[in-house]
C-alpha cells in the first residue's frame, strides 16, 4: 500500500473507471492510499482506535460520493484527505467532555523530562505524543505537518489543498519543525 505504486496517468485512469462503476478500480485506489490516510488521521486524532474507524469512513464516504468528484488535475488523494480532515473536525466538534485532560497529561509528560536535554533526546517520541505536541502549533503549521509528513504529500499538493503558495507552505514547514523542536526539546 503505497502511493508510489501509481503514476499520475494510472491514477487518473483508475478514477475514471471507478466513476464508471468499476469497483476493482476503486479498490486499487483504496489500497494505494489507505496507509497514508490512516497515518494522517492517527496524527490528527492521536488515537489509533479512533483512526481505524475514521479511515474506513473516509473510503466509504468517498465511494458513495465518487460521482461528484471532478478530476480536473486534482489528485484523488487530495479529496481523500479533505474528507478525512472534515470527518476529524466533525468528530472533534461532537466531543464535549474531558478535553483538557489529555493535553495536561502530555504537558506533564513532555515538559517534565525536558529540563535536561539528554533526557529529552532519549524520550521515545510516539505518534500520540507528537500529535499532542502538534496542538501547540498554529492551525496552518499543524496542517502542513499532517499533510506533508503523515500524509506523505508533496509541497505542491499541500499548497493546493491549503490554498497557499508553495513558498508559504515551505515557510510554514520550517516554522512548524522549529516549533516542534522547541516543544519537544530535542537536542542532538
Amino acid at each position, binding site marked *: *500500500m503505497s502511493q508510489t505504486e501509481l503514476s499520475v496517468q494510472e491514477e487518473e485512469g483508475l478514477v475514471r473507471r471507478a466513476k464508471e462503476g468499476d*469497483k476493482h478500480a476503486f*479498490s486499487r485506489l*483504496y*489500497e494505494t492510499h489507505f*496507509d497514508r490516510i*490512516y*497515518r494522517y488521521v*492517527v496524527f490528527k*486524532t492521536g488515537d*489509533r*482506535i479512533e483512526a*481505524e*474507524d475514521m*479511515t*474506513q*469512513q473516509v473510503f*466509504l*464516504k468517498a*465511494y*458513495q460520493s465518487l460521482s*461528484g*468528484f*471532478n478530476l*480536473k488535475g*486534482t489528485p484523488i488523494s487530495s*479529496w481523500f484527505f*479533505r*474528507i478525512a480532515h472534515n470527518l476529524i473536525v*466533525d468528530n*472533534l466538534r461532537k*466531543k464535549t467532555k*474531558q*478535553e483538557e485532560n*489529555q493535553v*495536561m497529561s502530555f504537558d506533564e509528560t513532555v515538559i517534565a523530562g525536558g529540563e535536561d536535554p539528554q533526557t529529552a533526546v532519549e524520550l521515545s*517520541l*510516539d*505518534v500520540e505524543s*507528537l500529535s*499532542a505536541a502538534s*496542538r501547540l502549533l498554529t*492551525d496552518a503549521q*499543524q*496542517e502542513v*505537518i499532517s499533510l506533508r*509528513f*503523515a500524509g506523505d504529500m508533496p*509541497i505542491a499538493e499541500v499548497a493546493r*489543498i*491549503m*490554498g497557499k503558495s508553495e513558498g508559504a507552505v*515551505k515557510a510554514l*514547514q*520550517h516554522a512548524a*519543525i522549529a516549533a*516542534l*523542536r522547541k516543544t519537544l526539546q*530535542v537536542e*542532538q
Partner: protein
Amino acid sequence: MDFDDVLNECLERVLHGETIDQCLSRFPQYADKLKPLLDTWLQVKKAVTVDPRPEFRANARLQFQAALNASESKPKVGFLDWLKQPQWAAVTAFALLIVLGTTTAALANGSMPDQALYPVKLAVETIQISLTPSAESRGELYARFLERRIEEITRMAEENKPDKILLVTARLNSMVSAIASLTTATLENDTSKSAAPQETAIPATTPSQASPVPAPTAPTVAPPPGQNQNGFAATSPPMVGATDAPVATANATLPFSAEPGNVATLPEANETTSPSTVAMLNAAAANLARLRDLLASAPESESPALQNAITAAENTYAALLKYLAGK
C-alpha cells in the same frame, strides 16, 4: 534559494535516501541551522510512520469490499430498491407502523439482512428506541434486538453470506455505542431528561454512512463559514489549544471492554448477581457458543466476518451487562 527552500530540498533528499550529513555537505553555509531541524524532522517522520494493525487492515478491506459488492445491487430504483434506501426506509417504516399497523411491521421484523424489508426492520427498531422514554425499557429493547442480530448472523452464516454478516456486525457495533450512552445517562441519574441514544444509522448496504461528503471540486466562490476555500473545515476552534484534545469515549469508562474492535470480557455470576444479569449471562453464553460452533465449521471465506461478528456480539453483551449493573 532561501533557507525555507534549502530545508525543503534537504527533506526531500533525505526522504529519498540521502543521509543528513550528505545533505549538509551540499549546503555548508546553512549546516549549523539545518542539522537540528533535520534531526527533529527525522524524529517526527519516524513517529508518524505508523502502520495499521494487520488485523485491522484485513478487516477493513473485507468490510470495504462488502460495501462495494452491496452497492452493485442499487443501480435500478424499483420499489424494493427504493425501500432499501436508508433515507426512505425510516419513512416507510413509520408509515407502515401508522397505516398498516402491526401486520406489515411483523413481516418486516421477520426479514433477514438479504431481504428487501430488512432496512424497514432496522428502521422500525430505531423508531421503537426513539419512542421509548425510559432508559430501562430501552435497555430491554436493545437486549431483544441483540437476540435478533445473533439470529440473523446465524442465518447468514448458514447461508454463507459474509457480506451480510458484516452488515449485521456494523449494526451491533453501533448498538454498543448506543448502550454505552444509555449507561452513562443512567449513571448520571438523568435518564428521564436525556435524549434517547441512537444507533448510528446503518443502511442496508454499508456499515457506515454518516454525514454527506463535501463537493469534491475546488470551489471558485468564497468558502462558507467554517471552511477554507478548498473545502477543508476550519480548524481554528477545535484544532488548537487545550480544547481539542482527543477525549475518552463513554464506553472507555466501562469496567468491561466494549470498544468495537476489542474483545470484551464478560463478568461471572456470583451470589449477589441480579436475576436479570444471570439471565443475560446465560443467554450470552448460549448464543456465543452457538456462534463459535458456526465459526469452527465455517468456510475460510466466511471466518473473518464471523469472527468479527462474535467480537461485536461479545461487546454488545458486555455493554448490556454494564448497563444492567448500573441500574
